[in-house]
């Protein structure tokens, strides 16, 4: 499809959007500060822009259009009511620096969300400000660092993670100035406790992990793990990306975690927006309370007020210009209100039922589970290694062919330790018929892999483009449109 630039003509514009004084508004500005030529932006009519982007949108898979069982990403239905709530003019029109007196409605919403998140995690306090999971991780590890420093414990320079951990975990540790040591995961998807014991020491600042793990199984030794790390003087970080599996069932605090983030764009159903925005609130136990990032909302007799550096002198400070992704927080709150107490519990009930059902049916259809002795949680892993070996088709080929069936591919090649891996997370908002359709598609593809493996290797066939050449993309870098 043409780019928006290709559609333009010099001098064309969407005139109803061009309102401004002619010329002299810039009077008084030094010549040298001004632009000499207009930037090469698209020059299109309003209809051209609307038509172009409407048609572009049709080239996306999305939750609103397709089943999207992308493991670790929790692609559940994003309630339109929550979008409507966050789009109320009173919320959209609030300036971030409006005085507290003129912000009680908004602050009341944030406070309510803080309380709900405290309840579902068991943590002592929550700060909503991190803008995504990874920034939540950053805040969490920075708090761990602040904690050790505040105690004069300056030698701890290492963060542990299971080797199956999500890439943001080690990357975050490094951003916080730590080195990373990875701990092996055993054949059942549990952390190797002996390896962990061998790894901890006076250099250990903490351990980052999620539970259920990225292997899609519940880490059964979590209490022992916590014990080992705590005994070594380290703290425990909970990556909340998988909270959907245990919402209302187990609280991270009760598993021994000192600090965590939640991915509201996963568990709390806010839309992923083709990449973001999300929200990654952090929760802390008593030990990290003094270091919580600001701002945080507090309530007293007079109403709500912001806690800032003045109130939390040990804070790791602010991590963004204002108070995080407010609009996403409002969506998450709306979702939580519509679920209510009982609804929270049902999320994990049906997220797990859907995953278990799908795993059972796929196994019955001849697919190999990566952890056959384990119960599925909200997600589970298939290994397509046998198919790969027999027919020369990869998990990637399966993934691309699934797209032809109008189903988004599961997460592939993560976690890396499972060969030809499909991490499958159906979420609780998909109905049984949709899961059955997925099994049918997988079965058909597996048959095709025997009959006509080339058709998998060259998939997809029914999409706007065929399989794209990623190597060329990286080699002949084209990162922007160029005329002609």
């Amino acid at each position, binding site marked *: 499809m043409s780019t*928006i630039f290709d559609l333009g003509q010099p001098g064309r514009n*969407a005139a109803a959007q*061009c309102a401004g004084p002619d010329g002299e*508004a*810039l009077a*008084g*500005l030094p010549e040298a*500060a001004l632009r000499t030529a207009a*930037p090469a*932006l698209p*020059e299109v009519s*309003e209809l051209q822009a609307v038509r172009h982007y409407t048609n572009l*949108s049709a080239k*996306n898979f*999305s939750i609103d*259009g397709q089943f999207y069982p992308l493991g670790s990403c929790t692609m559940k239905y994003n309630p339109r009511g929550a979008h409507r709530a966050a789009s109320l003019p*009173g*919320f959209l*029109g609030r*300036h971030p620096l*409006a005085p507290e007196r003129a912000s009680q409605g*908004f602050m009341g919403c944030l406070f309510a969300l803080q309380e709900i998140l405290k309840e579902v995690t068991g943590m002592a306090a929550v700060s909503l400000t991190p*803008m*995504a999971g*990874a920034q939540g991780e*950053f805040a969490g590890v*920075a708090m761990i660092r602040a904690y050790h420093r505040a105690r004069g414990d300056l030698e701890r320079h290492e963060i542990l993670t299971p080797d199956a951990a999500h890439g943001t975990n080690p990357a975050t540790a490094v*951003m916080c100035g730590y080195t990373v040591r990875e701990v092996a995961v055993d054949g059942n998807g549990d952390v190797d406790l002996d390896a962990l014991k061998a790894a901890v020491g006076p250099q250990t600042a903490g351990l980052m992990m999620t539970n259920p793990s990225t292997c899609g199984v519940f880490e059964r030794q979590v209490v022992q793990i916590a014990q080992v790390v705590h005994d070594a003087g380290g703290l425990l970080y909970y990556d909340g990306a998988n909270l959907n599996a245990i919402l*209302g069932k*187990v*609280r991270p605090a009760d598993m021994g975690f000192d600090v965590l983030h939640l991915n509201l764009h996963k568990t709390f159903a806010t*839309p992923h*927006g*083709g*990449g*973001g925005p999300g929200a990654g609130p952090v929760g802390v136990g008593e030990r990290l309370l003094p270091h919580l990032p600001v701002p945080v909302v507090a309530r007293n007799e007079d109403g709500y007020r912001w806690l800032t550096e003045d109130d939390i002198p040990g804070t790791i*400070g602010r*991590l963004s*210009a*204002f*108070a995080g*992704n407010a609009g996403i927080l*409002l969506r998450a709150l709306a979702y939580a*209100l519509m679920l*209510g*107490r009982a*609804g929270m519990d049902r999320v994990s009930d049906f997220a797990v039922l859907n995953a*278990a*059902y799908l795993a059972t049916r796929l196994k019955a259809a001849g697919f190999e589970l990566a952890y056959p002795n384990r119960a599925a949680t909200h997600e589970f892993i298939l290994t397509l290694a046998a198919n790969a070996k027999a027919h020369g088709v990869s998990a990637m080929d399966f993934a*691309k062919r699934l797209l032809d069936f109008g189903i*988004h591919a599961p997460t592939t090649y993560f976690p890396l330790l499972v060969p030809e891996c499909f991490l499958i997370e159906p979420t609780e908002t998909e*109905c*049984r018929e949709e899961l059955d359709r997925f099994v049918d598609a997988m079965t058909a593809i597996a048959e095709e892999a025997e009959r006509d493996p080339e058709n998998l290797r060259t998939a997809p066939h029914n999409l706007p*483009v*065929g399989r*794209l050449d*990623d190597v*060329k993309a990286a080699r002949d870098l084209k*990162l922007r*449109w160029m005329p002609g």
Partner: protein
Amino acid sequence: MPFIPHTPADEQAMLEQVGVDSIAALFAEIPAELRMGDSPALTHGEAMSEMAMLRWMGERAEQDAGLICFAGAGCYDHHVPAAVWDIAGRGEFMTAYTPYQAEASQGTLQLVFEYQSMMCALTAMDASNASVYDGASGLAEAILMAVRKAARKSRSRRVLMAETLHPHYRDAARNIVTNQGVEIETLPMAEGRCDLQRLPGDAPLAAVVVQQPNFFGLLEDVDRLTDWAKGQGATVVGVVNPLTLSVLKPPGQWGESGADIACGDGQPFGAPMSSGGPSFGFICAKAALTRQLPGRIIGQTEDASGRVGYSLTLQAREQHIRRGKATSNICTNQGLLVTAAAVHMALMGAKGLAAAASASRANTLRLVERLTAVKGVRQLFPGPCFHECALALPRPAGEVLDALLDRGILGGVSLTKHFPELGNALLVCATEKRSDNEIDAYAKALNSVIAG
């Protein structure tokens, strides 16, 4: 069950297939002592219907609504063409994930490619990423880029940051980068602009950070600053308001050879104020720094039959591939706001953006003229401002703002907390949306507040 489609019959049949007799049995691997027990310890109450939830949230939204906004300071009340969110709100954009499966994500991918192209055009840079969280955290990423670059040369971890930079940006960037042992020094100001007399000269610098227009809405001498910084071997990071780039010299052209990195907040492009988020941070860089960029980058490529397509590229910079060696830990970014921004820029075009920028400046000039006619109110700093301006008041800014609230006016942002040395100082802004009547109303209200 809100959002859960299972009927009792579904549930029953699925449990049978799995071979367990209750949903509880699915959680058998969770150690019993960890379980919350039958009734979860949640107190937030009964489920609300969508209608009840909208009423509840509507009442709260209403509580804060209706102020006429003269605050800026990094978040602006600009007009957003109606088409922007009609497009960005389409389920296909809003409910997609990061475009890992390129062939099923050409909508988002091409759009971000177009966005990158537009941002390069505006900033006069060679490459843009697909967004970071916001302007402030983006600045931290830009500094880390510069530090990584310096690691191969001067090995300096010193960064010089203008005092005239948004104080929240200074704080956030410091909070993030000091974890990696980066040292931040401040380039002091004189009369609201970088004091060129007090440029440090001693040790090598990894980066110099300047904001244009600066926090007070004033124009820095970015040409001289850039040339000086480059002379020091520093990477020059320009923090810019992208709307102003429709008329101001782009960072890529500052001084002799241009700044190296342009970053800032995309809020003026399609994002409602929304309490400051979500908006998005952008980072654009000269070609030499492309591989230092954090986050997603989209590249153009082809399929086997030569059809043009787009995909995530240079992924070896990213955490999901490089883990601890990635350029950043960022994963989820602010994609939907980039979608809105691309549509916004396409609809406005260079002409529309320049019109909005000029109108904002014209309104701010008018506002300043009207407000400084109030007794005791004067412009705090000399020199032309763009579309924000610092005023000196005869009374504490907090008090004045409070009194203005009673008149339905959000009168600006007090500078007292961050710049106590400036006295009773107030930062005001009037975007293109402010009408003459509203500006007059503010002047009248201020008059009565200050007289009263």
